[in-house]
């Protein structure tokens, strides 16, 4: 698995062979506040880079998570149905949101250091 890369829209992704895992950054979960609902896509759903894949409702506001590259969903984190707060407590680990197979590799996200300076 590659190191996580980050998008300006505050998702992270990591690549394993031809698959990506996607979540939202610690900064993003902190800005959203308590996450209460997550609307996940279905396995098999196909997204183009920049498409909205996930809707995250928090006490403060609602946010979307966007596809980092063209991909097809292969797995969703169904734990989030009953415990959406995992994204708050462990956004970069057990709070991952979807896994997907890559249709068109686009590994242009920011490194952690670049993302840190982007949000500061």
């Amino acid at each position: 698995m590659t190191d996580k890369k980050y998008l300006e829209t505050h998702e992270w992704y990591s690549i394993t062979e031809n698959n990506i895992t996607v979540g939202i950054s610690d900064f993003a979960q902190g800005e959203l506040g308590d996450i209460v609902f997550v609307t996940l896509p279905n396995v098999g759903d196909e997204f183009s880079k920049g498409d909205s894949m996930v809707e995250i409702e928090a006490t403060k506001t609602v946010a979307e998570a966007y596809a980092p590259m063209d991909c097809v969903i292969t797995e969703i984190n169904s734990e989030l149905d009953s415990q959406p707060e995992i994204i708050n407590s462990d956004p970069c680990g057990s709070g991952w949101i979807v896994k997907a197979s890559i249709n068109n590799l686009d590994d242009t996200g920011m490194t952690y250091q670049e993302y840190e300076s982007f949000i500061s």
Partner: protein
Amino acid sequence: MNDLLTTSLFKFHQDQNSKMIEFAGWQMPFSYDGTIKEHNYVRTASGFFDVSHMGRIYIENKEIVNLNKLICSDLINLDNTKALYSVFTNEEGNALDDVIFWKFDSHIILICNAINRVKITRHLLNNNITHKDVTFDTSLIAIQGPQAIELTKQLLDTPEKFSTNHNETFTYARTGYTGEDGLEIMYENQHTDKVIDFLNQNKIKPCGLASRDTLRLEASLPLYGFELSEKISPVEANLKWIITNTEEYLGKNKIEAQIATGKHKYIKKFTLKSKRIPRTGTIVKSGTTSGVVTSGNYSPVLEKSIGFALFDSLPESDLIEFDIRGNLLEGQIIKKRFLS
């Protein structure tokens, strides 16, 4: 946020690493431990809110007859030990502000929304009501929750519900904005350190404005600027129970006409079973009756979305449909309070 007003508890908020936000010209705590955690402190134990940004206005009782001409409730016949929730009305019968009065033998403390403090003091001035704005000399905290009364007994004598009291240091009432029992306590700023020591010793957790909002919503209480405004009357906001003023007051004819005809806008409570939250501004329909969500959020107790919506007229049906970012979702108008 340098030019914002701060309360006497500002250093405490900083020491707690509270997330601070701008609210009505004040720098106020948004949350400390997280909105839902703070919500649950108040629902299950106790929590306190720094609400010193709210206006506090001292008015002598000799002004009461004139004051009573500006509100829709009967302040004149209220006992001198009671607190009263009411609305300052305009000529249209709509709300200039919703406020609490604490009545004592010699004077009244009027507590108004921070955002309306200047408007209300001007309104008093324009109506020749002598008053003194003591907002900046005093602090106001709300200690709320099932343990609040037991914990505050060592500090002060507990009044009956919706009653007032005072001692050398504190002026207070058994009121609040959370649906829980508790007190709202005013004191001169010099006593803040003593108050913070008391709160710390008793492990009364600090709660921010975010949980104050989810708590008031779950308690079915309106928020000025959302469920009440200069375009919304207390009748429309489902507050007929506070309209007790039998004397003349500003906008009385409009309010009485609304009550008599039922022809007015309607604020209604709703719930929905969806993973989406209808936020302020979301369009909602009840048959052909249109409405807009005034407040909407997640209820930690009910574990679902709840809120208020303002309909143009009496909703045709309790079954309603929200348009949330292009998704049509079904919800339900409810008559009872969100929490029984």
